[in-house]
């Protein structure tokens, strides 16, 4: 039986769609783990990236740190935290936030650092304060990259939130972990398929978000230059 047959045989069975361990509840749990992690990561990484991009200070440290940071193994960190701090929200939140920070941080930095210096000079020349330059010029111009960073991070987090199941939490990882343990490969394939679909749906959501956040002028420009 192929992977898709496995997945389909499991997905079409009605019992997967009801109750506390049904797919809808698992999707909600999964979105909760992913959403909260992404939010915390964004609150840390966007201001930091914008700050470094604006001032130009600590650029070298930031870019290299973000790259080294990516090497932290998420599952290893999770097990370490279970041993060190036991079972709390932070136990699963920290590894996922750590995972989500680098793409958001680097994109926010690159977006702001890449703003045309002439535009900044013009803004300052018009009498804007530094804060106004950040808020009204740099961040709007960097917004396509900032949203791209969030989108990349969201993909990582949705795919990796499966590890919450390792420490007895819910989410779609439950199907993969339980299925593997019980040699129920239909469940594994079905669960993995739902995660892929969810990750793609989240990508589409961010493409929609881009329309809302990125200024119309920039979008028109992007279209024209294409």
């Amino acid at each position, binding site marked *: 039986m192929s992977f898709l047959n496995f997945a389909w045989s499991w997905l079409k069975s009605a019992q997967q769609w009801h109750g506390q361990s049904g797919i809808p509840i698992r999707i909600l749990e999964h979105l909760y783990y992913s959403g909260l992690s992404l939010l915390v990561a964004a609150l840390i990484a966007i201001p930091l990236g914008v700050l470094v991009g604006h001032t130009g200070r600590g650029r070298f440290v930031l870019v290299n740190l973000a790259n080294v940071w990516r090497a932290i193994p998420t599952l290893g960190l999770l097990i370490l935290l*279970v041993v060190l701090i*036991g079972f709390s929200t932070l136990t699963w939140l920290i590894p996922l936030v750590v995972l989500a920070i680098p793409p958001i941080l680097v994109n926010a930095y690159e977006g702001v650092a890449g703003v045309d210096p002439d535009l900044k000079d013009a803004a300052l020349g018009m009498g804007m304060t530094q804060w106004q330059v950040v808020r009204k010029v740099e961040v709007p111009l960097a917004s396509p990259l900032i949203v791209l960073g969030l989108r990349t991070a969201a993909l990582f987090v949705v795919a990796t939130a499966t590890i919450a199941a390792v420490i*007895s939490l819910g989410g779609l990882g*439950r199907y993969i*972990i339980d299925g593997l343990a019980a040699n129920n490969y239909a469940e594994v394939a079905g669960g993995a398929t739902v995660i892929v679909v969810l990750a793609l749906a989240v990508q589409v959501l961010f493409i929609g978000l881009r329309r809302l956040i990125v200024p119309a002028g920039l979008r028109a420009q992007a279209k024209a230059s294409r």
Partner: protein
Amino acid sequence: MSPTRLPLRQGAILALAASAAVTLAACGSSSPSNSNPLSGGSSKGTVVIGSANFPENQLLAQIYSTALQAKGVKVTDKFNIGAREVYYPQVEKGTISIIPEYNGTLLTVEVDKTSTAKTTDDVNAALKANLPSSMEILNSAAAQDSDSVTVTQAFAKAHNLTSIADLKAIDSKVIFGGPPEFPTRSDGLKGLKQNYGLTFKKFEPLDESGPITLAALKDGKVQAADVFTTTPQIITDKLVSLTDPKFNFAAQNVTPLVYKKAMTPTIISTLNAISAKLTTQELLAIDTKVIVDHENYQTVATDWLKSVGLMS
């Protein structure tokens, strides 16, 4: 049960195939007429002691090896071989003469997959009846490396627990932790309900007696969990494994699996004397020495043999 889940299988197969080829070639040249180089015949022939690739099994093999050498038996050590699927055929052929085994898993993984024998006696009877004729098992030790229902010492004291049956009085308040497949395993939640009438408040899927299970017990996230009886943290984290008088978990006594033709009365009596002294408590204590304290296997084996009077 740890012996069933041994990694590195393919690497081990290659390594073993290579070493077996070298061994056979070497033996072949010295005694071409003898198809079985290990059969010996004299009371002091060379025996090959193997072990699976996890610390406890290697330590047991080291104990066998040290004790036999002290009796003047010529021994070749081939430790850290890999999974049972790799070493079992080698014992059947005689390229390995002795390996420390666990009777329950040996029975259900290699000898009779459909067996439902649970107690030490039943398992050993089934093994004796069904092992291929070139092999036999010697006496089982009391020591077991099996699944168990384990709680913290404090919890056991507070509720007067010594056996799994004692949990009956408080089962509706107990959250149980175990590997994710535990609810569907015949010796899992199903078995605990059948054998002891236990229905727990909740089941938390954790890992196979690993760091997550131990953290959950320590943290109070679960009050009882499936932990292997020779997990060193039972000592270091002050846990206690409840006894299993109804054999919900099949017996996993440490039992030497041997190649018949390589046996001599000296070897048999030495290994049986070791089994007679080895309890789960003793095994747990020496496991802790090599796993947690990183003591040398040889030293731990020698010290233990001296402490029980099997070596001077």
